[in-house]
């Protein structure tokens, strides 16, 4: 079933390939370039079923963005998948503590991303 997914990454090529993988599976994609942009996009689009976010980004990093998003009542229970090159256990633990549901390390195989999306969204 088609879902609306917010993709947050400072790398344009990553946004492009993530969108490509998600759109091929029939999902709607909203793109944001960093945490600040992502919060604005959340305010503009009230029906986001899943957030896929990078961790290391300028202006506002992924984990700070997720904290801010979870503080909004309408996104308190929106599932979050972190998609990042960061594979350190401490970062993962930090993500888990603020309510992140899954952690996928780049480079990702599209089928792995889609299986996670199906499970979460």
């Amino acid at each position, binding site marked *: 079933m088609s879902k609306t997914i917010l993709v947050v*990454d400072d*790398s*344009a*090529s*990553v946004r*492009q*390939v993530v*969108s*490509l*993988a998600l759109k*091929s599976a029939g999902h709607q994609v909203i793109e944001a370039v960093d945490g600040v942009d992502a919060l604005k996009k959340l305010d503009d689009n009230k029906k986001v079923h899943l957030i896929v976010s990078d*961790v*290391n980004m300028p202006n506002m990093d992924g984990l700070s963005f997720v904290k801010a998003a979870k503080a909004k009542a309408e996104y308190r229970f929106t599932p979050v998948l972190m998609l*990042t*090159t*960061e*594979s*350190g256990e401490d970062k*993962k633990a930090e*993500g*888990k503590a603020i309510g*992140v*549901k*899954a*952690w*996928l*390390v*780049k*480079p*990702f*195989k*599209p*089928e*792995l991303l889609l*299986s*996670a999306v199906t*499970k979460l969204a």
Partner: protein
Amino acid sequence: MEFMVSDATKSPPVSKLVAATGIIVALTAQYAVSASVYALLLNAASLLSLVIFYQFQFNRQHSSLLQQQQAHRQLLKKVPPPEYEAAYNCLMDNLDAVLPVWQCILATSNEDMTNATQALSEHFSDINFAVEQGMQNANDDAVQQRQQRINKVALAARDSFDTLKVAIETGGKRDTETLNVLEQLVSGLQSVEGRVSEVQKIASQINLLSLNAAIEAARAGEAGRGFAVVADEVRKLANFSAEIGQQINSSVNEFGEQLKAAIGQARTSVTESRGQQQQNLGVIDSTMAQISSELDVISSDTSSLLALRQQVAGHMQEVVYHLQFQDRLSQVLQHTNEALEELQQLLERNKYNKLGLLASATELLEHMQSRATTDLERKALGMLHQDYRNTESELTFF
């Protein structure tokens, strides 16, 4: 700038201070046992404690500085001081010149790679979109449904053609049966002809008998006159019967000829029509064969299209996977650039402080370790013992 610590700068030993304070306390205790003397004693004790504390701190820092100085001396021993200074200054000048160049090269390469990869991913996205559009209807379910519909239509056509064939064949049989009935009628007419000739024979014999009767009546004279009239009437009837028989015969003959001609025409027509039927049946068979063959081609094309679609989807997945190298490399290059910038600042800050520079090297390495986000960097910085190239994309659910 170097700093030297000599033995002459050391403070007096603690034991001497303790002994001196003890003597003062003992003398004062002998001559004055008042409350003010006790207060003085307490102050002296506090003073002594402070002296001991600062002496301890001083000794610790002193020994640390001595160790650093010793390390520096050992370093200086390896290179004769004048050459070391010259080499050091040369290295500093070279690094001053080279570091900004490296930074510029790294930043430009990173930007170029990012732009190129972005363009590449946009093109692949467009290609994928075009392929998806082209094969929009080629998904498994739609193809199967279409195939089923085509098969259904083909089966219906086959049924209709079979019914038509049966109708044509039945029509042909019926024509033949009608012809056979007509031919039986012709043979029936021939038997009528036979009967008519028998009637004529009978009329002829009656005529003959009536002649005989007339002769006999004439012999009988006046008595046979009445019989002669009867015999004459019988002869007339016989002649009339013979005429009728003749007429019937000619009518039957005429009718028989006409019937034969009609049957001949009908047979020619049936033969022609049978030929046409056979031709039509042949057309039906060849049309059915053509439909079957076209269906096979459609089926084969659809299968090829599906296979092609799966191949394209597989390639796109690989493209999506491999295009992500840019993100990792971009981060590594950015961190390396930041490390180079930090190194340049450290060199600038500690240009005349070689020991400070040594301490900063450790600090720089620590900063690089804290900045590392990829396994490639962790491996290079000795933080990771496994081969980073073997790390597959990993998914963790919390």
